[in-house]
């Protein structure tokens, strides 16, 4: 019964789902790549500029701390509006999938930064010390020690962030970007069409489950403690 309902649902609305899935994937992938790079960078800076760490620098730390907090303070829609001029410059447009990516990055990067920070703080200070003693440069310590040792944690952090990003794309409909989450909202929720709603949620859940499984697997197989 339920099965046939599902099949009916997916064959009937196939194109709709496919289109939305494509939009979601496009947003998630592009935003993730940029946000991960930025987030890692900021996260690393948030750690090494702390008191007693590699490049202690109270000013930089405070600045980043405040900026990250400020960005995390804004509801996504307001963030979207606040950075619209930037979006226009960077993406050429403020609507559609293109226009959604910059705000999604702005939303995810600070989040990834915080998670990166947490993961890096767990690295054994003794190992960092050993590399200091070897005459490793700051860059080398960050790359070959901190990021490497924290990798299992970082992967889990990235997994959490990716799933958060998938969630955030639902709000990208505000600028007409579409996507599965938006479809679920528009058809499912606003028009009270439970089939489509659950169809979308089901597909998103599949994605999330996949992302989480990959994350768990990678993290576990890299964890050597």
């Amino acid at each position, binding site marked *: 019964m339920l099965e046939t309902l599902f099949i009916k649902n997916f064959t009937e609305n196939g194109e709709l789902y496919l289109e939305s899935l494509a939009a979601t994937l496009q947003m998630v992938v592009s935003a993730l790549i940029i946000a991960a790079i930025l987030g890692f960078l900021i996260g690393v800076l948030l750690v090494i500029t702390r008191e007693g760490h590699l490049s202690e620098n109270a000013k930089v730390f405070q600045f980043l701390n405040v900026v990250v907090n400020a960005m995390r303070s804004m509801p996504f829609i307001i963030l979207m509006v606040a950075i619209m001029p930037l979006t226009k410059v960077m993406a050429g447009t403020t609507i559609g999938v293109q226009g959604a990516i910059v705000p999604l990055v702005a939303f995810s990067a600070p989040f990834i930064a915080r998670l990166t920070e947490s993961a890096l703080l767990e690295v054994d200070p*003794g190992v960092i010390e050993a590399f200091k003693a070897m*005459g490793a440069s700051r860059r080398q310590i960050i790359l*070959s020690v901190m990021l490497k040792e924290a990798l299992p944690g970082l992967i889990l952090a990235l997994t959490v962030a990716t799933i958060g990003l998938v969630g955030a794309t639902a709000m990208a409909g505000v600028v007409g970007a579409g996507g599965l989450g938006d479809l679920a909202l528009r058809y499912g929720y606003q028009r009270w069409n439970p089939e489509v709603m659950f169809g979308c949620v089901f597909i998103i859940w599949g994605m999330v489950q996949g992302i989480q499984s990959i994350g768990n697997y990678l993290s576990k197989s890299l964890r050597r403690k």
Partner: protein
Amino acid sequence: MIVMKNISKIYSRGDKKVEALRSANLTVNQGEIFGIVGYSGAGKSTLLRCINMLERPTTGIVKIRDMEMTSLNDTQLQQARRKIGMIFQHFNLLSSSTVFMNVAAPLRLTNTPKKEIEKKVSELLNLVGLSEQASAYPSQLSGGQKQRVGIARSLANEPEILLCDEATSALDPETTDSILELLMAINRQLNLTIVLVTHEMNVIKKICDRVAVMEKGLIIEQGHVIDLFTRPQTPTAKKFISTIIDTQLPDKILEIVKNQSIPGLLARVGFVGDVGAAPLLANLSSQFHIQPNILYGNIIEVKNTICGSLIVNFIGQHDKILKVIRHLEKYGLQAEILLDVKQSEVITEKSFVERISV
């Protein structure tokens, strides 16, 4: 080579101040193997870590060659550290890297070609007996294996100075020996300077040239190893020495002596170097008609020098024995009378033991 002047280091623990080092002074010469011993918590690790600035001394100056370490900028410090290897008390290995990669780490920092890394690392792993473990991760190793990875790593970039913090404390004697021989070989061949924190006098005895004894943040004794072994000045030094030259007469022997009815004197006889102590002692019986019974003691080799400490029961008349002792002293032995055997009953057990302990 390494000069440390008036080094003090104060840690704060809550609102308490902990003085880990209090004006320590140290000079290590080029090509020397320098040992640091001392009780747990004496400040040995802290002192060692001040040499390469892992710990910045609260006051004092550290110089390596004529470079003042305390005043180097970051890049200079990095350059300086590349020539200093370090073995950590807690190993500090990359848990996410294999044994191979851990040992390769210092080489990769200097962008050594891959071929060369492979060669060098295999060589080192072979030397420390871990060729089979090359692809294992630290968590899959035994304690001693981890320590050997740390040792191999510290030698990878052919340092000019090697700082070892309890480098062999988790190793069995065989492995310890092979590591020490390796260090001595490098020391000789490449004129490597080694500073070595340890609590094993066997290690000191086997490879050190000079040694410092630390207590409560101070260096309380410092000198050539032979001198420390034969003429320790402080109770701490004596305690350390006693682990390999045990001159604390056991109760068992004491009893035998006490129950002896023939007159005699109990004495500690010490000697260093090629004085031929044994023949000297052996000849006493025919020369002086004094029988020297060796009750207890050790004769050991301290870095190519024989030295010994024996508890000898000289049987015979006191005046004769005193003559014998003069005779021995003439030949460079040290003798110290511990007990008049016939009068032993009048000495209380306690003061007795005190007197015979070195």
